[in-house]
């Protein structure tokens, strides 16, 4: 019961207190206008290069929008605790770390899902992209898997708050790299072999593959392996994030560095 209380109340309170983009004056420009115009930009770039259809870029950039939200949202959920000096109190509590951080991940994932959906709907409408309605359920499933994987990567980024003054540096650099390495804006077969190999272990890649396959008319069962792989990648990053947090927590206790800023 206490586990669930920490999970729900902790997650919701953290989201309301630390997700700075929740303010509509910030949400609209950062999480609606920015990703929609990013989508439009890459659709036109794709048309100029003539290597893929518009749907490729609309799907790619919608998923990237979810990734950015996951990375920054989850990262800030932990970094914000440190900034407002509540991290030592949080870590002194006997609460389950899984409940604490999974509770913080869920609102971020939901947020990413909403942002990606808005980006997809507006991007598709602006660029005249139509996708069969039968694919929507599968697309939602692939997107949910990617939101989880990206929030898990955000947990790893957030853990770095114990060592770095700002996690924005990491989140920004990773979100830039995701544009390229996951195949969001370049077909994977056009990337060098080394990047193609790396992309298999990065959130978004398998989710994007699943979504694009669904958009061509495949059924959900056809893409279950990709969705499973995306969830596995997410689970691996989530476990790595928890381990990193545990390691940095112990190290921080030993060095007494929680409040050093």
């Amino acid at each position, binding site marked *: 019961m206490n586990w669930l209380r920490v999970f729900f109340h902790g997650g919701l309170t953290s989201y309301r207190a630390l997700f700075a983009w929740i303010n509509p004056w910030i949400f609209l420009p950062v999480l609606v*206008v*920015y990703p929609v115009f990013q989508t439009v930009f890459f659709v036109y*770039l*794709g048309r100029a290069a003539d290597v893929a259809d518009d749907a490729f870029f609309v799907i790619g950039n919608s998923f990237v929008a979810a990734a950015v939200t996951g990375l920054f949202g989850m990262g800030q959920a932990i970094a914000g605790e440190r900034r407002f000096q509540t991290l030592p109190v949080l870590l002194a509590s006997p609460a389950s770390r899984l409940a604490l951080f999974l509770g913080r991940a869920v609102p971020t994932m939901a947020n990413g899902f909403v942002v990606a959906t808005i980006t997809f709907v507006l991007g598709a409408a602006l660029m005249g992209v139509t996708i069969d309605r039968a694919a929507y359920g599968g697309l939602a499933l692939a997107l949910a898997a990617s939101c989880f994987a990206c929030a898990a990567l955000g947990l790893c980024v957030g853990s770095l708050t114990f060592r770095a003054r700002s996690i924005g540096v990491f989140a920004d*650099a990773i979100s830039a790299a995701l544009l390229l390495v996951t195949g969001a804006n*370049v077909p994977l077969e056009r990337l060098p072999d080394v990047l193609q190999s790396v992309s298999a272990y990065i959130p978004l890649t398998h989710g994007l593959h699943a979504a694009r396959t669904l958009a061509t008319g495949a059924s959900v069962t056809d893409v279950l392996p990709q969705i499973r792989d995306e969830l596995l990648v997410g689970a691996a990053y989530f476990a790595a994030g928890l381990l990193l947090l545990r390691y940095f927590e112990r190290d921080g206790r030993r060095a007494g560095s929680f409040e050093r800023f």
Partner: protein
Amino acid sequence: MIRAFATGLRVHLVHLLRSPFDLVAILIWPVIFASIAYYLIGTEGSTRVLFVASLGAAMMMLWSQVIVGSGFSLDQQRNQGTLELLVAAPVPLVIVIAPVMIASAAFGIYGLLVTLAWGRFAFGIPIAIDHPVAFVVAAVAAIVSIGLLGLIAASLFVLSRAASYFGVALQYPVYLASGLMLPLALLPAWIDPLSWVLAPTWGYRALTHASGGGGAWRDIGMCVLLSAVYLVLALPCLAWFERVARDRGTLKLS
């Protein structure tokens, strides 16, 4: 006033050179944009096309640095409680804010160098600049004009902390409307007149023409003309927004 302007430029440049976020961002983003363009265009594109794409990526970073970097820089001043002191300084506000914008744009030159070096060493794109003098002048004209375009937005940044996030939203629309990395002919015709009043359009064209083909001086002239227009527009905007911010007492609110 000259001393205040020069000191502002120096302090903000030093600040940027000490900021891990800005240093990493300006290293990563133009490289990512340029790489996406290289991989999309592929080996089918000539080295000239790829070189021009590098210039586009660099110009994108220059604009982003001005519109996002300077917005957050002013926000940081607000958080640290120094924005009020800057606004209260006994020099016109434009002398305090313009160096922030121009230093941010100048910092974008680092992005230009990084992009050209990345193209050269990672993709073998030769750095071919036919008119080096015009290229340098074009770079300076682009910095000043884009910095002064940012000055118009800066008046909003002074007014509200949320305004700096509008800078984030303004990145891609300007990339598109300025035809950075993609031909304007692909875009709807109504965007064409919009591109004429945007400094990144002319800065990009000036750099492109100076690097090959010639005819950069007309584009440089447009950068100079637009700089004057932006300054004329920014002055009353800054004065008005400063008065509103003082009236509302929102300078300190973060």
